[in-house]
């Protein structure tokens, strides 16, 4: 297990390194000049050069990338302004440290991600189990049809229709948004319900389908038959034996989804105007705020690779046939 973790974490660091390098060179090498934006209308070549120097983008590219990297591990100096250890630089737009903004935005993203993940896992796996056990019956057909519609609907469409109906017309829910759960738990919950529901409707179908089809498969396996022959009740068989074998694809998808959500659910956060990492990324792209884009890309990529390691480790726990190397 330890060997597996070390190997995978090293691999993850390598992947993050590649991703950061690709992002850095693509953005900073290309002719989109962020200085021109902050320079404004009365821009003179001298002024532009000053801004270039202040932003640190007048130096050769590899040197810039090197100081970006060393900045993450050792901190760096921005013209007298010291940026301490995990330094991701300063925003080109509001000149705040990128790391502070990311940390500031992360609770909203975390709230959306954890709540939605829990809800969609419960709903999806629950639907799949019921459908598998009532295979061919009306319940099965109705839930699978619902899954088809859910999987085909778009977040930005469903989310806004739901908001129109539940918030504006019926007024059952408050406006979606993030408030700190420690200051006002009720408001936090109310503001998060709509994003959670939306992400569940759109994503639960995958879980329901995987659960259903692998349950149907495992219920036909020899070891399930043996468990039955030993005299175990049907529920005992479902829960103790069949369920466990059916969980592998669900765990895979769940890990990927959670990784994606933690990196910022871009469309959901934009649709409901929740100020998390995803909305930050969309706004930074609109403002050509390169250090901020780098920051959000790194957060999202880290979440993805960590999730994939966690998924592989989970396989070993769920399925004793899997051995980690």
């Amino acid at each position: 297990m330890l060997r597996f973790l070390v190997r995978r974490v090293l691999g993850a660091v390598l992947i993050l390194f590649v991703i950061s390098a690709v992002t850095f060179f693509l953005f900073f090498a290309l002719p989109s000049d962020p200085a021109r934006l902050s320079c404004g209308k009365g821009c003179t070549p001298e002024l532009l050069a000053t801004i270039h120097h202040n932003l640190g983008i007048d130096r050769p590219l590899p040197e810039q990338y090197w100081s970006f990297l060393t900045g993450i591990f050792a901190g760096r100096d921005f013209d007298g302004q010291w940026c301490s250890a995990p330094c991701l630089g300063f925003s080109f737009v509001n000149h705040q440290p990128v790391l502070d903004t990311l940390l500031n935005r992360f609770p909203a993203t975390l709230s959306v991600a954890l709540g939605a993940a829990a809800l969609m896992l419960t709903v999806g796996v629950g639907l799949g189990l019921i459908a598998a056990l009532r295979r061919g019956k009306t319940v099965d057909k109705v839930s699978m049809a619902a899954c088809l519609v859910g999987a085909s609907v778009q977040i930005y469409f469903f989310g806004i229709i739901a908001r129109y109906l539940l918030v504006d017309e019926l007024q059952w829910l408050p406006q979606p948004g993030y408030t700190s759960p420690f200051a006002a738990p009720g408001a936090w919950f109310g503001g998060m319900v709509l994003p959670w529901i939306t992400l569940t409707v759109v994503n639960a179908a995958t879980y329901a389908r995987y659960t259903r089809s692998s349950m149907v498969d495992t219920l036909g396996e020899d070891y399930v038959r043996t468990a039955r022959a030993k005299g175990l009740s049907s529920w005992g068989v479902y829960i103790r034996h069949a369920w466990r074998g059916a969980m592998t694809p669900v765990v895979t998808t769940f890990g990927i989804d959670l990784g994606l959500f933690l990196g910022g659910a871009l469309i959901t956060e934009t649709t409901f105007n929740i100020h998390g990492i995803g909305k930050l990324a969309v706004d930074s792209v609109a403002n050509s705020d390169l250090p901020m884009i780098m920051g959000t890309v790194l957060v999202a990529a880290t979440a993805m690779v960590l999730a994939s390691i966690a998924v592989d480790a989970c396989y070993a726990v769920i399925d004793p046939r899997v051995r980690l190397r």
Partner: protein
Amino acid sequence: MNEPTGLAVTSDHRDTAGSSEEPPPDQTLAPAEVAGRSPTQLAWRRFRRDRTGVISGAVVLLFFLAGLGAPVIAALYGKDPYTTYGQNQPGLLNEFGYPAKPNGGIDGQFWLGLEPSLGRDVFTQLLYGIRTSLLISLAVVLIITTLGVLIGVVAGYTGRWVDFGVGRVIDVVLSFPSTLFFIAFIPVIQSLFVPPDQETPTWLRATTVILVLSAFGWAQIARLMRGQVLSLREREYIEAARIAGAGPGRIIRAELLPNLWTPILVSVSMTVPTYVTTEAALSFLGVGMVEPTPDWGRMIHRGAEVYSADLSYMLAPGLAMLVFVIAFNLLGDSVRDALDPRAHR
């Protein structure tokens, strides 16, 4: 990492050579009417018997025809997606810029109503929007399928360090947070081609979207193909071909590819709706198609701004996309069942 593709391609088709002559198993009982049927004919027969598949296929076909015939339909209907009817003709929009008639201004003249404030015709926008969506998504699917099959087959068949290298590249590409990269890179790539003070032409915007989507899309298919080839290349008939003196080129072309058509077709039918919605999502986020190009995602983007006053403007593109995606997904399931009946659940 072992990712379920949802395609359930456990296929082991050996129908390369010769099997087209042998009668299918269910026909052997009635030898009187036996006529040789190719696997394609068999698949087509299975597909025709699948009512869901035929209906969803018809719906998808309708969308394609509507996209192709958009200029003709628009000419017969007598309107275009660019003219601001609501502004030119007083009385259509109220003082706040919203359609004066209920339900977004739907009537005999404007079948799906008018766009708020600009007052353009919704029906023709929707119609031309099909073109934008399908053109971009089909181009992406064509590119990523070609690239993915090529890379996957070569990696899987060559093995050794080529396979290892390609495998690592696929790993990296798949761990990129893709939506974020799409929205981050599309403006950057555009600025490569167009100086900042100039307007980006529509075709260039579309090309950029296609390029960026393709740059990340091939990895999924390449991984799938690689897995297929890894299991296929150990088969006896490949070994036989090799012993008979066939080179790698011939083996890939004549022995491997015919067996890969099923997973390729299944993957195509699953990815088209994915890219239709991805393209719309990009326009919704403001980096895909922009004014005045008719596009479903851009319409929903605008619709989301005015949803509380006029929901109907976003209902039209949203529902159209929902119907299209559902139909295409059902069609994909039926295509898979028809091509690969053993994968049926």
